[in-house]
């Protein structure tokens, strides 16, 4: 158990709707990254949050946005859902127990999003 939690576990939406996914990092971790894993593919980096700001972004449209709260938890928002947004969304937690960054990213169990 990596200590990273995500909610909800599963979600079904229809095209055009909006969705919010949530992630709580491991205790003591201050950086959160989000990844999208389409069926049969490796995870693709969406963006990373540190100190409540987006620090790096992958090749995803502006429909994908996020937020980090003072307690380091994070949300991923996707607007105007498309069928192609159906995927497993993974959150990764980064950071040492004393706040120093480490090289290992610990992943949560993911949220399975289905867009109909």
């Amino acid at each position, binding site marked *: 158990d*990596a200590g990273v939690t995500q909610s909800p576990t599963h979600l079904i939406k229809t095209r055009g709707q909006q969705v919010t996914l949530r992630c709580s990092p491991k205790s003591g971790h201050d950086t959160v990254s989000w990844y999208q894993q389409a069926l049969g593919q*490796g995870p693709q980096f969406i963006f990373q949050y540190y100190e409540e700001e987006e620090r790096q972004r992958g090749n995803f449209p502006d429909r994908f946005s996020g937020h980090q709260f003072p307690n380091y938890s994070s949300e991923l928002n996707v607007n105007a859902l498309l069928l192609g947004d159906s995927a497993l969304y993974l959150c990764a937690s980064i950071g040492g127990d004393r706040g120093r960054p480490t090289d290992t990213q610990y992943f949560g169990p993911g949220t399975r999003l289905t867009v109909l």
Partner: protein
Amino acid sequence: AQSVAQPEDQVNVAEGNPLTVKCTYSVSGNPYLFWYVQYPNRGLQFLLKYITGDNLVKGSYGFEAEFNKSQTSFHLKKPSALVSDSALYFCAVRDKGFQKLVFGTGTRLLVSP
């Protein structure tokens, strides 16, 4: 841009036999390399990493990986496979800028009894 390649979609091995899952990388500087395992309907579990030092890295569940700079490879190995090792394995390289991980396409390992 940094990238990794996993040339095998699937690897089949009998229980008790050694296993190897292949990974090659392409980076502009020193590579930071990782292996993760994914079981059905689960997130990614960290197995091991290479940052610097000894070319043979030992990780969780008896897995190890050999870093070979001349061949730009980071193959995952285990001396004796278990049926429970059957899963999807991902190799990844870290972007030195901000901890972004770039993943390969994954290799499915099937261990038969």
